[in-house]
């Protein structure tokens, strides 16, 4: 499939064809800014006229009012609250963000989140009599011949329980539910209970979810069933592979990371990557979303200059957790996963001042600003909900209000929860 209409293709290095997203920087942004500023002049004149009518001083000569500058955070105080909040929320492009140590979902993607779950029939006033079960595996998504390591723990209180019988299996799952025969799994004693390795070759014909079930006899005649879902992309369904080529460049004041792929299946792809600073600490995340044709491709992932500048980022950086999939919109399963590209890739050295300090702007954002100002002019502007500060007094709810809530420090003392009917449950 050829690239999407807004993609340019140009010969690249190493015999590859580059697929480049249009970058809305430079002169394009200037043109957009001009349109926005003209719209703001019109809005500014009417707003000034309205304000002038409420001033005790002689009304301002509206016709001579200076034009409002291009909408940006630099002149946020001059903007209506709805526009100001929108600008505050869109300093960086979509999909770009800061990455911290606390964001384990991005640092260690493809995790699992199973907990120990009590078996209801074992409830007792004595916690040592309650039986809990934890069935999990090492990841959610598996590609190709990645082994699937399953683990099962059964505890009574804090004491491991050896089930009297354990019947486990895995079954393919499709749009209408379970498909085909159940494949038996054998769990063997391990350091932390019981373990089983599921060879994906046994499911090489299946793309999509697999449901693992374990029927555990934890006491004579007492059986509990636990289930677990995982997702397989067999070798024949892997749509593309990373070549291992990762390069970087400074483009329009932003860091552009270029990642090589061999694409077998054309379509809509999403490629994610993390960026780390010179000490290896997490710095930022970003992604590519777009159409890729068959063959050798290079996707460009932009780490926005202003973001890196705000983070005080200084190269050389390293790029890691490079991963991706082909998105199958409306299908089930909804994706074909690629095998992750392991390791981290070092970039050139960049000083913080190499990155642009410009706020993000593109035609969509400019259009949004116009639309929001239209709402202001019509008197139908909708305020954004207030964001509470942890520990501060929560905002009172003003159903008649149309402006934004006061700052937390100025908020009246109000009940943290509005009155509501309770069903009387504890």
């Amino acid at each position, binding site marked *: 499939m050829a690239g999407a209409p807004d993609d340019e293709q140009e010969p690249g290095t190493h015999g590859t064809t580059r697929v480049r997203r249009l970058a809305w920087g430079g002169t394009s942004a200037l043109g957009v800014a001009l349109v926005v500023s003209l719209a703001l002049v019109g809005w500014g004149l009417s707003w000034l006229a309205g304000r002038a009518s409420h001033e005790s001083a002689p009304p301002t000569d509206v016709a001579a009012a200076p034009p409002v500058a291009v909408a940006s955070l630099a002149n946020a105080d001059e903007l209506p609250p709805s526009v100001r909040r929108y600008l505050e929320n869109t300093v960086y492009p979509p999909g770009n963000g800061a990455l911290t140590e606390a964001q384990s979902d991005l640092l260690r993607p493809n995790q699992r989140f199973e907990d120990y779950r*009590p078996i209801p029939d074992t409830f007792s006033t004595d916690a040592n009599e309650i039986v809990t079960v934890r069935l999990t595996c090492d990841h959610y998504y598996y590609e190709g011949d990645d082994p699937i390591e399953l683990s099962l723990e059964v505890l009574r209180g804090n004491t491991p329980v050896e089930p009297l019988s354990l019947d486990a299996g895995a079954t393919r799952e499709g749009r209408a539910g379970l498909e085909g025969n159940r494949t038996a799994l054998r769990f063997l004693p391990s350091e932390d209970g019981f373990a089983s390795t599921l060879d994906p070759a046994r499911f090489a014909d299946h793309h999509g979810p697999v449901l693992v079930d374990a029927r555990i006899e934890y006491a004579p005649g007492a059986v509990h069933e636990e289930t677990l879902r995982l997702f397989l992309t067999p070798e024949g369904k892997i749509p593309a592979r990373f070549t291992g080529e990762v390069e970087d460049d400074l483009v329009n004041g932003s860091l552009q990371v270029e990642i090589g792929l061999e694409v077998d299946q054309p379509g809509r792809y999403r490629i994610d990557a993390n960026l780390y600073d010179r000490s290896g600490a997490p710095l930022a995340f970003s992604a590519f979303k777009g159409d890729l044709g068959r063959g050798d491709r290079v996707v460009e992932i932009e780490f926005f200059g202003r973001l890196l500048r705000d983070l005080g980022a200084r190269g050389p950086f390293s790029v890691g957790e490079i991963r991706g999939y082909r998105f199958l919109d409306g299908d089930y399963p909804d994706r074909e996963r690629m095998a992750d590209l392991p390791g981290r890739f070092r970039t050139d050295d960049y000083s913080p001042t190499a990155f642009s300090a410009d706020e993000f702007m593109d035609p969509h954002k400019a259009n949004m600003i116009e639309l929001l100002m239209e709402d202001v002019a019509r008197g139908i502007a909708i305020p954004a909900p207030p964001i509470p500060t942890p520990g501060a007094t929560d905002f009172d709810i003003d*159903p008649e209000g149309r402006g934004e809530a006061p700052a937390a420090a100025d908020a009246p003392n109000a009940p943290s929860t509005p009155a509501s*009917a309770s069903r009387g449950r504890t």
Partner: protein
Amino acid sequence: MPVRPGIGTLFGALLLVLTLSAFAPTAMAGVGGDDAGTCVNACGGYGGGNNANSCYCDASCSTYGDCCADYQPVCNSNTGCSPNSGSRYVLHLGGMCSQGWNDAMASASGYTSIDVKAVQTNHSGLSDSSHALGIYLDQCCTGSNLCYVLNYSGGDAVMGHRLANTSTSYNVNWVGTSAGAGGGSALSGNFLADIFGPCDYAGHLGRSEVRNAYNHNDTNGETVYHIGGHDGWWYTSWLLPGEDDGAVAYHSAGAVTYVTGTSSMCKSPKWTNHHAAWTCSGYNEDHYEMKDRFIQNMGW
């Protein structure tokens, strides 16, 4: 290591064993439930999925009155919106086991409320409803139109899935989420269907599945505001960490990047572009009561 329950929880759990079947409420999450058919990938014929309701996606279904809920948007591109018309819309996206909002919608001055007919009942519920939502967003929220989106419960994941997988820039100023299930629920597969279903999709809202279903940090530039309730039910709260509304815990309703027990909707770190709204302590309401809380708070 397992969490040792407190004595109060143990007594509540004992009551659960004795009285669950007598005291559990009937499913109320949405009209239809029970594996309604979808027209996603089924236009022109019988509704797809586990179509226990026997609905159709062909031209005759309007005559016979047996169209699947998403027939108009999916097969006829009819969302009720006028594309690129300078219009203003508030989209409403329902939750698990629903085929629409199925409740009173916002009344916002200058804005038209739209009920997003997204079928969240089948195993493919997330993919089906995300696709249907995309049709609404394309028609209602591009060009000269402007939108706000309200979602509830499972609709949180549907909206997140769509935003993370699209590169289309929608004219959505912000998204409001009540009792969001974007972080999944520990009830999935066991109690969720019993209480809210029955529907096959109820088994697909586990924490591992939902948290891995899309990159929650990529909202395609949209800002998402979250509110949650803490009036949980004794027969489910023992399964949910921290505060909960009986179906989802605060780690999900509050868009926290990892599963944890917390009593604050402001718990961080949150997924990028996700924020708590109005209150860190949440609302003394259960999962059902939370559905229209965002609308009430906005004065709509």
